[in-house]
């Protein structure tokens, strides 16, 4: 069946099987492999993308359910050749080791930062509960989100 959706600001129209999962649509149809396939069972969060601005696990969304929606993947974070503050945060605070969970972590963090501009450490940990990292022990990821929050507040003049 035909779906029309916007991916990272670009309108797309594709003929797909109804059972195609959003994560496979993004990777195999749209060619955006930044979104990772992890546990495939709604637990690890590696496949997290924004669906109309909200973080979702794209392994548990059918692409047909996203028809008409706007999807943002990790590839859509940087603008005009400049990293998004959350990307700067992961870079500056060493928020990754192997990097497998990183795109999902960043998308979940972007959802959090759209809800609150100055999250506490507890709020950050709570917001990232659905994302597993097997390398870092999370501490540097927390710092990366704090870095991004601070940078975004500064940019907004708060």
């Amino acid at each position: 069946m035909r779906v029309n959706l916007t991916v990272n600001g670009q309108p797309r129209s594709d003929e797909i099987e109804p059972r195609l999962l959003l994560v496979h649509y993004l990777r195999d149809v749209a060619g955006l492999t930044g979104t990772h396939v992890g546990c495939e069972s709604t637990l690890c969060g590696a496949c997290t993308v924004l669906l109309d601005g909200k973080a979702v696990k794209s392994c548990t969304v059918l692409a047909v359910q996203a028809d008409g929606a706007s999807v943002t993947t990790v590839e859509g974070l940087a603008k005009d050749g400049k990293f998004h503050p959350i990307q700067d945060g992961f870079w500056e605070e060493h928020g990754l080791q192997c990097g497998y969970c990183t795109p999902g972590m960043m998308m979940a963090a972007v959802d959090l930062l759209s809800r609150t501009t100055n999250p506490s450490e507890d709020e950050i940990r709570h917001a990232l509960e659905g994302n597993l990292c097997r390398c870092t022990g999370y501490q540097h990821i927390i710092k990366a989100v704090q870095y991004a929050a601070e940078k975004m507040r500064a940019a907004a003049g708060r």
Partner: protein
Amino acid sequence: MYPGQFEYHRAASIKDALDLLKRYGDDAKLLSGGHSLIPMMKLRLAQPAHLIDVTKIAEMRAISESNGKIVIGAAAAHDTVANSSLVRDKLGLLAEAAAAIGDVQVRNRGTIGGSLTHADPAADYPAAVLALEGEIKLEREGGSRTVKAADFFLDLMTTAVQPGELLSQISFAPIPAGAGYSYQKYPHPASGFAMVGVAALLSLDRSGKIASARVGVTGLGPKAFRASAVEAALAGKSADAATIAAAAAKTADGIDALGDIHASSEYRAELARVYARRAIQAAVARAKA
């Protein structure tokens, strides 16, 4: 992991969804957020030939107040319920339970109607919906019927919903001013499901005694239930620690507690007693005499 093949239908209205349900019968499943159904389909525990998506039906996503009741559309996502100012103001216990579900990604997609009809024994919502005495509206061809929360959950993943019926909304009387409530859960560390979850809602009379108490429990048995022995042990008593502890000690009485690799039935029963005590204590602390 892919689901099996199916045909996808997008219902434009409740009538449209019911027509599709009638046409495809047992081969069809209603799809809302899909956060219970899609995982089941990946594991081939469910293999519907037709999926009927109800999430584009505006009235099924709405949260409103009408005739003194708060009405939650079945396709409202957990995050929407948890952050609705109407729900937070008038049904704080439901907002608290919604905010305790899974993780933010799950709350952004999963819906209240999907959770209730799936009736996972470890789901959070049923405890709160039981304590709030929610009324569940089931639409069917040519009409509808309303089922009380206490009559809705029949057994493990089994509800009062009949073939051809669609859960469209859940309505609640607002929590009375001055009443105290709390939802307390012990989350499974991996899945976020409730190993045990207890929703307590109570009112104090002018002398500070417990005028009435309602306690909903999830995670402990094959289905969520009202802990009537606990409620009876609280009603009319002073809200002191000893009374609360004695009442909470009855939480698992007469319940065939679930046991699995995560927790034995004895351990789950003990968790239920402890979390009931905490929920009742927190509700008392919040209630105003």
